[in-house]
């Protein structure tokens, strides 16, 4: 059977499962709609969190990023897992004990301030919205490339599926479909990884295969190091660049993870504080399965790519090469007209002078889009066509599950934080549930529209969502729990300073022509959120000293969330 037939079968099957699960898990109250009635088992919540967390970018782009960045790419691996330690130890149990529905709920109540609540809502909406548009675009690309359905229709089908289960089931429907989506995506990620690991180093466990030995007796990583340096690239396992920037980017990703509302809200769905702790552990385990396989896939893919293309005649390239050329993600330009592919680092002046020019190279002739590494990997390794179809279904599962989680944050920000807690406090539960359904329906459609017509800034903004979350939410949440004396004035000042500082630094270097040599202490805009976070802490603490301590009932609230006892009864709505 052809790849396309397999893709139709497997994608169709997984979508049927999602719809079936959605019909089974309908929501009938606001508590079910926002937090799945707080009745989700910690293991299932761990899976749902993992699917929620791992987006199309984790599934499709990350291994490719690492393949081309080598050691430097570790910042994504550590950054996107290390935040779960902070979540498990410093946030999840306490926020669960607090027992409400959203992150702005906590900020608003803890800092007894409508201003703080609205600032939090605006941050949550901005972060979630930019993120969700990226997912929709990913869905459209997957459909158009593999099913040969026009891009627009791809997005429409994706939007239709999410619309169905999100509007019907709210958090409950989303949670149980995310569990199914996790199973699909992890299976789809591991099958090719295991196959390729067996083929290349004879070890079925990719995590060990990364340190394995190739059939010619050399070690994979040692071999890859020499392959890279022979072509003028940086050695794969080390980096000559300053560790400062890597340090700051890793920290911004970790702190941002711990401050992202769609991740935090997942810990509101479990029955007890103990379950919130366990659930964070399960979530990290399920995430780690993919995140420890990714570097193996990356190293295999880079080695395979170099071995297949470097200094080989264009005419002998296998079929996948021209297939990917058709998509424009792989480009060959025979600059010196010798019919042989010269793939090397033409930005490396030493290499160009000593090797490339004497050999008659006229510049690097191959441009490889990092996104094709995961998608093309099964083809490069000659795996059967059903494996390729599975990878497509996995990518779709990753994109849809993340989109649904984000859409729920958007809907609850509108119907709960803005409507119920601010504009129309007297709204009935039934009215609020109806508003929540309308809000999510509208959000799905708007996200779909922008998925089809993406505003130019979106792709870049997703990466900054972490920096902004780190500089705004993270300190306010941590001090809300660990520093009883922190008051409204300090927290609001801190959030605003953190957000404005980080935002301005990013805007200056991305839009107003700032150049890399103007960076403060080598920190790139991706890592500046860490500095914004420190500034937020500093400003909060200094400002809070000039204003009175929080009122007694808020101090009591802080005392109460610090002990697990009594979580079941704390509903207060």
């Amino acid at each position, binding site marked *: 059977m052809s790849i396309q037939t397999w893709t139709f079968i497997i994608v169709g099957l997984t979508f049927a499962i999602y719809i079936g699960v959605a019909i089974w898990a309908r929501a009938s109250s606001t508590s079910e709609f926002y937090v799945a009635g707080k009745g989700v088992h910690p293991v299932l919540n761990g899976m749902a969190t993992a699917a929620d967390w791992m987006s199309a970018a984790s599934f499709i782009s990350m291994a490719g990023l690492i393949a081309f960045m080598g050691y430097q790419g*570790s910042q994504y691996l550590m950054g996107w897992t290390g935040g779960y*330690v902070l979540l*498990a*130890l410093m946030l999840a149990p306490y926020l669960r004990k607090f027992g409400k529905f959203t992150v702005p709920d906590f900020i608003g109540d803890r800092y007894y301030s409508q201003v703080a609540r609205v600032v939090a809502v605006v941050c949550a909406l901005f972060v979630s919205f930019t993120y969700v548009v990226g997912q929709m675009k990913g869905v459209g690309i997957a459909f158009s490339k593999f099913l040969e359905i026009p891009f627009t229709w791809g997005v429409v089908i994706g939007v239709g599926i999410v619309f169905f289960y999100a509007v019907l089931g709210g958090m409950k429907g989303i949670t149980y479909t995310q569990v199914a989506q996790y199973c699909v995506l992890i299976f789809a990620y591991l099958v090719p990884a295991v196959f390729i690991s067996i083929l290349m180093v004879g070890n079925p466990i990719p995590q060990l295969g990364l340190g394995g030995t190739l059939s010619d007796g050399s070690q994979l990583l040692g071999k890859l190091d020499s392959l890279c340096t022979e072509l003028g690239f940086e050695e794969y396992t080390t980096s000559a660049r300053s*560790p400062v920037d890597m340090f700051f980017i*890793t920290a911004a990703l970790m702190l941002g993870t711990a401050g992202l509302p769609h991740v935090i809200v997942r810990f509101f769905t479990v029955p007890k504080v103990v379950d919130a702790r*366990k659930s964070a552990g399960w979530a*990290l385990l399920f995430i*780690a399965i993919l995140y420890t396989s990714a570097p193996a896939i990356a190293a295999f893919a880079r080695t395979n790519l170099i071995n297949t293309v470097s200094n080989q005649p264009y005419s002998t390239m296998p079929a996948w090469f021209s297939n990917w050329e058709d998509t424009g993600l792989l480009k060959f330009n025979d600059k010196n007209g010798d019919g042989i592919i010269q793939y090397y680092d033409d930005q490396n002046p030493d290499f160009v002078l000593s090797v490339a020019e004497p050999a008659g190279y006229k510049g690097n002739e191959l441009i490889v889009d990092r996104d094709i590494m995961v998608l093309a990997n099964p083809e490069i390794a000659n795996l059967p066509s059903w494996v390729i179809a599975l990878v497509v279904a996995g990518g779709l599962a990753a994109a849809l599950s993340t989109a649904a989680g984000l859409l729920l944050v958007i809907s609850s920000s509108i119907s709960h934080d803005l409507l119920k807690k601010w504009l129309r406090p007297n709204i009935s539960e039934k009215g609020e549930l109806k508003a929540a359904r309308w809000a999510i329906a509208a959000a799905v459609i708007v996200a779909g529209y922008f998925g089809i017509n993406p505003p130019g800034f979106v792709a870049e903004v997703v990466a900054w969502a972490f920096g902004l979350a780190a500089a705004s939410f993270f300190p306010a949440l941590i001090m809300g729990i660990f520093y009883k004396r922190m008051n409204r004035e300090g927290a609001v000042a801190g959030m605003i300073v953190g957000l404005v500082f980080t935002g301005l630094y990013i805007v200056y270097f991305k839009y107003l022509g700032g150049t890399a040599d103007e960076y403060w202490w080598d920190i790139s805009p991706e890592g500046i959120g860490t500095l914004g976070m420190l500034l937020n802490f500093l400003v909060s603490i200094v400002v809070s000293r000039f204003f009175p301590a929080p009122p007694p009932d808020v101090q009591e609230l802080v005392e109460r969330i610090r002990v697990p006892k009594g979580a079941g009864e704390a509903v207060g709505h």
Partner: protein
Amino acid sequence: MKEGYWSSNIKYLVILLSIWFLASFGCGILFAPWLNQFQIGGFKLGFWFAQQGSIYIFLLLILVYIFLMNRLDHRYGVDEDDE
């Protein structure tokens, strides 16, 4: 009594988060070039910490935390199981 619970909690956090910092920012980034002179299996040690080891340590830290906190809850009688 409650103070004892909270200060033990903070003590656990400080210890566990120090390990968290050492494993990732320490072994994975700052000391990675130095650690790379050692090999485990087919890995340079610093590289292994950055792409594998730190993630395993994160998992282990959460497991230890769950164990410590459950024991602490029980000792101070603030666990939820009796409800």
